[in-house]
């Protein structure tokens, strides 16, 4: 049993438990101790992940239940990075909450959940990973127990999640019924054979697809995302708008490749979902007067873009690199935006951002970089991401989808500029208090990363050029 292939995850479990025990032991003044412990955990896990990626070949391991391919490694990296940024943002935000110690182990477990989702090569494992990611997510979303909005967001997250997970489970059971196994490799082989027929396969794929759409914040299970962005504690919102998506997308990409295209039209379906998701997200974001909610909807639309890569899977060599690179770009830009919101003490009314450029020029600059990257203005990371996505779908024969994405990008520019315009063009005199040092640092670092990853994109694309998405 190659336990070594799971060291990064084992580290996360151990770290989470250690952190939990530590925060239970220390007095309320020292609850922040969870943050450095969580950071250390994440760093150690990342270190092992890198180590593992350089040592072990890309393969399916652990009796066929676990894929340690480039996609998993990349997802691990992105998830750990994102979680680390959120950990840095958290202590100042939760300073008033004497029980925020438990928040950190939950963050670590949430990262673990997303990683498990990404690496799952077994449908049961997928369900468990989704479940772990979900339960930690509900908790993180509702962590402001006294805040009406926070618990409301958590409740809706839970309600949508519970239904979606039930559907996911149903789909997994149907798949098992068809092929008699839950392993991906066996599933793919079983579905490809003539033993099954399209009806059950379609039903199973639909159930799994809708279930995973919840993780992505994609249509039709997208409704939780704007609420989470608006109502959840800002660090949780930052985490939940990015981390589950990373796992969910890799999982979706892995999963659809198991389906025989002649029986299950997953490619057009994914295109449909991509188009609907990006369009709905952008349209709904247009007139938001609440920045966090706007970011939530924009996050929905970004999921739509990301799903474009799924459409092109197997038809374009660019699909997997596009998917993974775009995820990184999106995660960084979105985190930067939420870090700014956090640093501004959760300031969220659009009007309250007018004139920010003169009061807080650096934070304003971070917001500009983040938004322009989300639009896809070169040379920021979002541009290279969208470029690769467009290239992938065009090569995959879905040029119309690229057209839809272009139209959506133009629409999205409108609402981003609704923020950025007043940010720069108006003059306000009120003071703009900030939270502290760390959230601001997180904002700055992620913004620099957005620029750096965009300008120096070659290492990423080089690394991604031979990434596999097993078992395909």
């Amino acid at each position, binding site marked *: 049993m190659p336990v070594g292939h799971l060291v990064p995850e084992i580290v996360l479990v151990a770290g989470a438990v250690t952190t939990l025990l530590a925060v239970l032991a220390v007095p309320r003044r020292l609850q922040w101790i969870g943050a450095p412990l969580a950071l250390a955990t994440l760093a150690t896990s990342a270190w092992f992940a890198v180590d593992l990626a350089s040592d072990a070949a890309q393969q399916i391991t652990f009796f066929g239940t676990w894929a340690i391919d480039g996609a998993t490694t990349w997802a691990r990296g992105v998830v750990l990075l994102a979680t680390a940024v959120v950990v840095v943002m958290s202590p100042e935000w939760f300073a008033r909450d004497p029980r925020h110690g438990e928040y950190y182990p939950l963050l670590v477990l949430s990262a673990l959940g997303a990683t498990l989702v990404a690496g799952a090569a077994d449908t*049961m494992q997928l*369900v*468990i990973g989704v*479940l772990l990611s979900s*339960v930690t997510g*509900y*908790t993180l979303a*509702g962590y402001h*127990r*006294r*805040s*009406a*909005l*926070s*618990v*409301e*967001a*958590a*409740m*809706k997250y*839970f*309600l949508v999640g*519970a*239904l979606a*997970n*039930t559907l996911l*489970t*149903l789909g*997994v*059971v*149907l798949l*098992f*019924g*068809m092929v*008699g*196994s*839950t392993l991906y490799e066996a599933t793919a082989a079983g579905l490809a054979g003539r033993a099954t027929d399209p009806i059950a396969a379609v039903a199973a794929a639909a159930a799994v697809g809708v279930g995973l759409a919840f993780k992505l914040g994609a249509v039709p299970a997208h409704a939780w995302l*704007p*609420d989470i962005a*608006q*109502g959840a504690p800002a660090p949780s919102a930052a985490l939940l708008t990015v981390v589950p998506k990373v796992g969910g997308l890799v999982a979706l990409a892995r999963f659809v490749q198991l389906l025989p295209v002649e029986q299950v039209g997953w490619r057009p379906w994914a295109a449909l979902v991509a188009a609907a998701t990006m369009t709905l997200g952008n349209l*709904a974001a247009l007139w*938001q007067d609440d920045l966090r*909610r706007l970011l939530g909807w924009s996050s929905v639309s970004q999921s739509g873009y990301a799903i474009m890569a799924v459409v092109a899977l197997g038809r374009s060599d660019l699909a997997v690199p596009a998917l993974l690179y775009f995820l990184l770009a999106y995660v960084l830009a979105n985190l930067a935006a939420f870090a700014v919101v956090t640093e501004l003490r959760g300031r969220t009314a659009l009007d309250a951002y007018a004139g920010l450029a003169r009061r807080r020029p650096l934070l304003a600059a971070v917001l500009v970089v983040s938004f322009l990257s989300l639009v896809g203005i070169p040379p920021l990371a979002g541009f290279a991401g969208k470029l690769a996505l467009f290239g992938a779908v065009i090569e995959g024969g879905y040029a119309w989808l690229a057209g839809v994405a272009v139209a959506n990008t133009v629409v999205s520019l409108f609402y981003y500029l609704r923020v950025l315009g007043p940010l720069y063009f108006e003059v306000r005199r009120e003071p703009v208090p900030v939270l502290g040092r760390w959230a601001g640092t997180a904002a700055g670092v992620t913004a620099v990363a957005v620029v750096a990853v965009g300008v120096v994109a070659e290492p990423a694309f080089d690394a991604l050029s031979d990434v596999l998405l097993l078992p395909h």
Partner: protein
Amino acid sequence: MTLTTLLLVAGALLAIGVYGALSQQSFVMLMMGLELMLNGVLLAAAGFWALTAGGVPEGQLLVVVVLVVMAVEMVLGFALVVAVYRARQVDMTEGVDSMRG
């Protein structure tokens, strides 16, 4: 007791569950609908294990996984119902609608 009859019963349970999940105002009742759905899934899983998969151990584990899903979702669900009730004195879906649009 054929696979078809099993799946029909499971489907009926799922249908009742879906109805409950969609129609109930109270969070708790709504969750009962979800439970009922999972009940159907459970039945289907067991049926598949026994009738199409030749009793492979994975199938039993799958049933356990469904049970875990059931348990975990309910635990968190109840915790959230408590939290929402404490923060807002509300126990129905219509009561939490401050965020919309």
